[in-house]
């Protein structure tokens, strides 16, 4: 019972916190870390190029005007293209950038599994072994017999 009450309290606090954060205006520092300077191609927070400074000013203007993070990003993409986003969008062509590594990992795991399976089969007990050379076999027998004497 006590556990249920504590859990409910935690969920309530987390829910309230996320509801509040959803209404908070975007932070310029966060946006500057997620947007790329089109001249030097580093994130805005790491650039002091003239256009980067201009973009930082634009972001502050839009935040002051009440724009959301998505609205600011959309406006900058409309000016500078999708390359202005430090991470690709999660829709359309940009979705490929998120999916391809996943496909590569799954594909790699399948290949590794197949290889391991093939190797383990090759070493399975009862697998056909190559016969010994008769001369060598005879010599081994002679050596063993001498050793046993």
């Amino acid at each position: 019972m006590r556990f249920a009450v504590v859990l409910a309290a935690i969920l309530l606090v987390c829910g309230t916190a996320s509801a509040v954060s959803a209404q908070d205006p975007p932070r310029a520092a966060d946006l500057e870390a997620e947007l790329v300077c089109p001249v030097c191609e580093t994130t805005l927070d790491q650039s002091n190029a003239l256009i980067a400074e201009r973009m930082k000013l634009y972001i502050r203007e839009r935040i002051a005007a009440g724009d959301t993070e998505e609205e600011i990003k959309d406006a900058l993409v409309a000016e500078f293209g999708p390359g202005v986003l430090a991470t690709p969008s999660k829709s359309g062509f940009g979705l490929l950038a998120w999916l391809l590594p996943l496909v590569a990992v799954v594909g790699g795991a399948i290949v590794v599994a197949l290889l391991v399976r093939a190797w383990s089969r090759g070493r399975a007990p009862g697998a056909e072994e190559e016969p010994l050379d008769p001369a060598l076999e005879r010599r081994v027998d002679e050596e063993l017999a001498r050793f046993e004497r």
Partner: protein
Amino acid sequence: MAAQRAKLVAQGIAIGLVALLFILLVWALVTEEGGDLAKRANDGELPPAPEFTLERLDQEGELTLSSLRGQGVVLNMWASWCIPCKEEAPYLEQVWREHRDRGLVVVGLDAKDFRRDARRFARRFDLTFPLVYDGPGDSIGEWGVTGFPETFVLDRRGRVVRAFVGDVTSDEDKRELRLAIDQALES
């Protein structure tokens, strides 16, 4: 036996991937155009001007570079935040006004910039020649442009006769530009 075959297949795939990456690298280096466009033009090779179709800043619609064939073109790559571009802009307007009756078009290509800033720049310097906009700057790579401003002079057949890396503000550069315009219009 099966294990050996699997190992060989894996090695083949790995070698194939490395070879593919190497081929892609070589291909990218070989097909990278533009880096030497200015040099080729200034060596007298007359390389063809890379094509573009871009939205216009000074009016509605788009401008395709090849639609200007038959006229000489002074193509100036600029951005509103570029300080030397401010020094150069009045002179380019003067060139446009002086030579447009001879069949010369000055085109300003604004890249990596805000549209609003570019229009403000054009108003400030009273630019009346055609202006196009390439926010992402996708078109300028083919021209080998790495900084602003750069100016290319194209003849009536769409060949680059002269390139200026940096602003055209010195007397020497202005004289060179006028010579290049004469050459472009005579073609």
